[in-house]
């Protein structure tokens, strides 16, 4: 199986601080990988680095077959990142925000209505300015472009944060669907039990270094 992510001795600096200090990581295409680790360990930095938002200053980084350090744009075309921030414009409606993001990525908005429906954002909510939404509704809105674009690599940073139980179940279902379609999903989360149940593997980040660990399922001998 081909590798979606191949990192060797990858180093990222935040200012002068080495947020990733020589990470080695292989993620196979179609895998769901849980990134675990304490606050400040480097989970978010790793996801942002894979999206080319934090420059890798040393090491090898091949993402979806492209050298991330040389060809950031090609990598970005094939991935979607939903992070702590939603990258939404408060004065635009839900539909306008999603339409802009999808069109900017060169995608078609044919599936806009059905996607908003599946996220519980159809009807009155689709025409509400995002600035008036709750935090959970904003996070759902931020997921919509990802679902419509359906990129090869999904990078989700604490996707369950701020969501109600129904929303958390929705995220789980989306991750499972993505894996069924052969997408690679990397999820940074503190909810090891919930995400571990979805994940094929767990990668623990500590002090800017990554190490493989069994998922909670594997640890308990389930699956």
């Amino acid at each position, binding site marked *: 199986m081909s590798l979606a992510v191949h990192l060797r001795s990858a180093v990222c600096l935040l200012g002068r601080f080495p947020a990733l200090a020589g990470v080695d990581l292989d993620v196979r295409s179609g895998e769901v990988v849980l990134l675990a680790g304490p606050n400040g360990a480097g989970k978010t930095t790793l996801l942002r680095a894979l999206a080319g938002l934090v420059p890798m200053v040393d090491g090898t980084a091949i993402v979806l077959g492209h050298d991330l350090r040389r060809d950031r744009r090609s990598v970005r075309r094939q991935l979607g990142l939903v992070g702590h921030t939603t*990258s939404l414009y*408060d004065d635009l409606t839900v539909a306008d925000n999603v339409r802009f993001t999808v069109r900017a990525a060169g995608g078609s908005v044919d599936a806009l209505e059905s996607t908003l429906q599946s996220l519980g954002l159809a009807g009155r909510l689709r025409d509400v300015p995002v600035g008036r939404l709750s935090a959970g509704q904003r996070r759902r809105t931020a997921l919509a472009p990802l679902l419509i674009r359906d990129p090869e690599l999904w990078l989700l940073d604490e996707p369950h944060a701020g969501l109600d139980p129904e929303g958390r179940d929705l995220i789980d279902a989306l991750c499972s669907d993505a894996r069924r379609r052969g997408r690679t999903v990397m999820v940074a989360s503190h909810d090891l039990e919930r995400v571990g149940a979805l994940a094929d593997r767990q990668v623990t980040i500590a002090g800017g270094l990554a190490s493989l660990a069994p998922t909670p399922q594997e640890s308990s001998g389930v699956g």
Partner: protein
Amino acid sequence: MWGDAALVAGKDLRIEMRSKVGVNQVVPFAFVVLVLFAFALDPDRGVLDRAAPGLFWVAVLLTSLLAIQRSFALEAVDGSRDGLRLSGLDPAGIFLGKALAVAVQLLVLEALLLLGVAFLYGTALRGFGVLVLTCVLATAGLAGAGTVYGVMAAGLRVRETLLPLLVLPVLAPVLLAATRAFEAALAGTPRAATGWLGLLGCFVALYTFVGVFGFGTLLEEA
């Protein structure tokens, strides 16, 4: 590139129409500047009429700072700048789109300010062809250079205070050339504006070139 520019410009203009910041704050600010000039300079001695071109462009220049800051403030909220970087949009298209949106707002403002100058300062508007051409070129220069420096300052915590320091000296040639071209038009000697319009054209070409080829690096590194 042009499709991306239209997408970004449409997005920025839609946000401005919805938020009404331009109507409620930027335009009134420009008129307050015009009125303050009228208070500061004695209209009885005809000073305002003679100084009208310079006062008009100073008002436009100061207001353009608000428009440029506003353009990048939109991208500073909730990680929108990261969204723009990840979007896959051509950086040249983003530059042209953001500059176009600023330029459209400034052109509307200039039309209103021209009426304000005529009404408040008693200036007789003549040489419309030169006035319009000057507005178009100077606005393109203000928007282009402002967008280049706006993205440079966007990633800094001190962007609100730094941007005027960066931009105002750079825009001095626009202020000078646009004022002289306006003076020529209003004096009924439009041919005297030719050289100044040429200077504005060079300025536009320079900053369009810098923006188209350098905006991507500035967006990533700022």
